[in-house]
């Protein structure tokens, strides 16, 4: 059905262009005074019209059809099923499976009828969409082709259309942000304030609680599981790993940048830069694998050799590898910043008889400081938001500790743990993940905005 629709769309689009252009060309051949727009614009205008009409019809139409088919088939299963979200989704999955013939085993009569209803509603609806779409497409084509004349300003109208399309594209980024904000904000609001939600914490319990255990008691006999949504251990865990990462990456990244920018010969740079780029390009899942299977056992072995007890998923291992991930980030940003310090400042210091390192320490670094600070802030923001390394190398236990040899958990690990696998959308546990996502978004956003603002000022100062 979908395929047929798009084949028709393609045919109509091609037809609209060819007919439109041909009409315009025959006007020229017929000795008309010069056309305002080129023939191809007379072709592209109806083409765009067909495309927009048919695509819109498809997107809106098939959505309506899907919703109608779902609700009408579910209605046949009784009001009780419709009311309960769990049963509803299970019932609908059955219906879909039966309808496409994937369901095995005996099928109750009721379900079978519902599936038939679903199938017939879908089929009917889809044909309706097809008919409507084709009709609208033909109409749009006919309208714009009928307007073709030597004075018709096809190019201007088409260019306005393109301008609108470009404007819409530019707002996609805004829409994404709005989408993020609303999706996390809405669920976060429900997490704290929805009265029908069992086990929801208050805002202060969340912000200042020191215990994190999102496991909800699913059955009555599991009543002794204590649910707690205290955010503090996640925050300290995240900050601990971030701090380790920055301790590793800060000096290494900065000194690498200084050496590459100020000391390295072009040949040396050409050799070393790609190494940093390789490191920057390694997917974090690979680094996570390395952290979990190589670095963590290594640290554990060393620790035991000195009589220290090291958790097999220590914060240190995750932090170290995360630091390595951030090195190229810090070094490339700092490198840019250092390079944008004007040469005249260096000359000024050299002319006074300063050595290279004195010039760097006393003149270049202070001048580049705002840029370097913002590079560090962006790096921290990245470390806080990094997921795969900590998922694979840090633990799940929400320990409140500052010992890097113990296992800690982070915000991202908890989001991933709660949301991966089957989850119902109305439990406090699921919503907690969105609340965590909200915190993560806000924290990183603040860091980013400040950092970008600082960089902007810095750029303006030397441009």
């Amino acid at each position, binding site marked *: 059905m979908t395929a047929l629709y798009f084949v028709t769309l393609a045919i109509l689009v091609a037809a609209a262009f060819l007919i439109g252009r041909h009409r315009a060309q025959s006007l020229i051949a017929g000795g008309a005074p010069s056309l305002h727009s080129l023939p191809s614009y007379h072709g592209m205008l109806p083409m765009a019209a067909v495309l927009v009409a048919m695509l819109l019809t498809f997107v809106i139409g098939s959505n309506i059809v899907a919703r109608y088919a779902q609700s009408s088939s579910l209605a046949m299963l009784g009001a009780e099923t419709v009311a309960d979200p769990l049963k509803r989704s299970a019932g609908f999955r059955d219906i879909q499976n039966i309808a496409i013939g994937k369901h095995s085993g005996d099928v109750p009569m009721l379900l079978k009828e519902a599936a038939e209803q679903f199938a017939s509603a879908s089929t009917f609806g889809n044909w309706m969409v097809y008919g409507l779409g084709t009709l609208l497409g033909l109409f749009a084509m006919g309208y714009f082709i009928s307007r073709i004349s030597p004075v018709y300003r096809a190019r201007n109208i088409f260019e306005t259309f393109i301008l609108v399309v470009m404007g819409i594209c*530019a707002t996609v980024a805004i829409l994404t942000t709005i989408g993020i904000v609303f999706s996390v904000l809405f669920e976060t609001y429900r997490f704290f304030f929805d009265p029908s939600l069992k086990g929801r914490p208050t805002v202060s319990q969340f912000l200042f609680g020191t215990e994190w255990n999102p496991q909800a008691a699913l059955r009555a006999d599991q009543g002794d599981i204590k649910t707690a949504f205290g955010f503090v251990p996640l925050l300290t865990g995240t900050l601990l790993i971030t701090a380790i990462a920055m301790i590793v990456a800060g000096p290494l990244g900065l000194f690498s940048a200084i050496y590459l920018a100020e000391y390295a010969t072009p040949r040396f740079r050409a050799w070393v830069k790609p190494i940093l780029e390789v490191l920057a390009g390694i997917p974090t899942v690979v680094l996570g694998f390395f952290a979990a299977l190589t670095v963590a056992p290594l640290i554990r072995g060393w620790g035991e050799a000195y009589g220290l007890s090291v958790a097999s998923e220590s914060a240190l291992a995750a932090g170290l590898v995360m630091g390595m991930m951030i090195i190229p980030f810090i070094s490339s940003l700092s490198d840019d910043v250092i390079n944008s310090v004007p040469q005249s400042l260096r000359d000024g210091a050299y002319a006074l008889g300063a050595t290279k390192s004195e010039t760097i320490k006393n003149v270049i670094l202070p001048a580049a400081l705002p840029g370097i600070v913002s590079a560090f802030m962006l790096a921290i923001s990245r470390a806080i938001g990094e997921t795969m390394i900590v998922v694979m190398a840090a633990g799940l236990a929400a320990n409140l500790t500052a010992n890097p040899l113990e296992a800690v958990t982070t915000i991202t690990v908890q989001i991933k743990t709660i949301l991966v696998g089957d989850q119902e959308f109305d439990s406090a546990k699921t919503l907690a993940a969105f609340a965590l996502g909200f915190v993560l978004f806000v924290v990183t956003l603040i860091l980013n905005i400040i950092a970008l603002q600082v960089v902007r000022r810095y750029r303006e100062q030397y441009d």
Partner: protein
Amino acid sequence: MTDIAGADAPVLRLDMTSDAAKRRIRKRYAAEARFKAYGLAALAVTTLFVGALVFDIIRNGIPAFTQHSLTMDVAVPDDLVPTATRSDPLAIRGADYFPVTRDALKAAIPGIESRRGERTLVRLLSTGAPDVLRDRLVADPSLIGKTVKVPLLLSDDADLYFKASSTSIVKRGGIGTATPSGTTGEITILTSSNDFAAEVVTIKQAAKAKADALAIEAARLTTFGGQSVAQRVTEINAEIAELKARFDSPKIEEILDAKLPSKLVEINGGLVKLTKITDVSVTGEVLLPLASAADAKPGDWKVVTYTTAESNRKVSDQEVAFLERFREKGMVDRHFNTLFFTSGDSREPELAGIRGALIGSLLTLFVTLVLCLPIGVLAAVYLEEFATKNRITDLIEVNINNLAAVPSIVFGLLGLAVFLNFFNFPRSAPLVGGLVLALLVLPTIIIASRAALKAVPPSIKEAALGVGASHQQAVFHHVLPLAMPGIMTGTIIGMAHALGETAPLLMIGMVAFIVDVPTALTDAATVLPVQIYLWSDLPEVAFKLKTAGAIMVHLSQKEV
């Protein structure tokens, strides 16, 4: 302020010749060298890390590209598939191949009667081993009833045994004449010489060393005193007494447990695993049946040691015995692991492949590219060339820069809440994955495209406008083509980023265990990095190698 005329003030001359000045300059140069060394050291550490990472991945990953099979003569019974249905491939596919391969194994090592031995033997083969035979028979039904030579895939543990050689095997000839008491089950072997004296001495010395250590511990504890300590000391003393009894009388029998290197005797074509040992006689369990219970002359039988203790390896002595026997017979065959590239995921490491994940990645990236390239370029063109600078475009610009730094997992939350729960898109589908990744890399592409557009000299556009082109014609005909190389670089960087992205895809359910290779954008699928994550989480060592192998494929793919 008193009038100290600047020019007349006593001038502090720069002193460069005194010893203090020389010391000072030496210090400054030392600081210079130190500072430079820090920079080099930072780069060296980073390089070292990259090297260690790459080396570690390659070391682990290389074995994933090969596999071991047993090449065996398999007698296919005539009644496996009834003659009437042999023309139907489905009937041949549906036949039960397990007994066929089991019988072939038993024929290869005759004389295994115990159920345990048999089970161990059968488990050496992968559950997917008969597939080769099945495919052979489907292709040529006339082979049914004949004996076919086929490579049967080994299980992951057996495969690893050959790859990692988890124990070394030491053999030495027997000095005396050995007399076994039977051919199967538990037997005793007597020897005419002190063949096992060395082993017995080693074990007894170890016992003595342990007793000495315990004695020191007991002495240390007694200095503390107290009830619980006294009890512990009593226990230790009892243990010491027991050990003392063993090492005091050299004739007493020693027991070999799984914590010691395994000792075996190879005799009359069979293999016996020793459990009890004295200088001149050993008792043990037959792993490979003996041909006869006849005496073996000196040099005709051997004492075998598996130097790694049984408790320290994944394969048991029995399995090692079988595998070594197969190796001696030249049946073990090492070959390139084609399954790794041609099959989907599997619970069995030796059958698992990355094809499903590769195709999943491809489909997902296709969606990403189709969405974010046109949208990104058009947005960049709009912002750079057409938008009037006002609050809204300013907001868009700030917004794009910030979006580029939002953690990827937050995009996963967006996908989950908006695409799955609000729009009811299918879970685990490349379509949704591609959508989420498109939003994720869109800022990267817009920023790169804008930079590329900005780099085109304005004179080009002015020239086009000068000959009467419209603003859009000037941009699309002249500016955009010149900016295209920069835009493409940005797009490639964005795509590489999307290819390695894992976290947001976990959120939208692309972590399911999916065996089938996806064929459509709405099929349940996974992608390569997620596959790496899934495999790395599994306990089997073989999956660790697979993960590293998949990473090698992944990285090489990214390099391209």
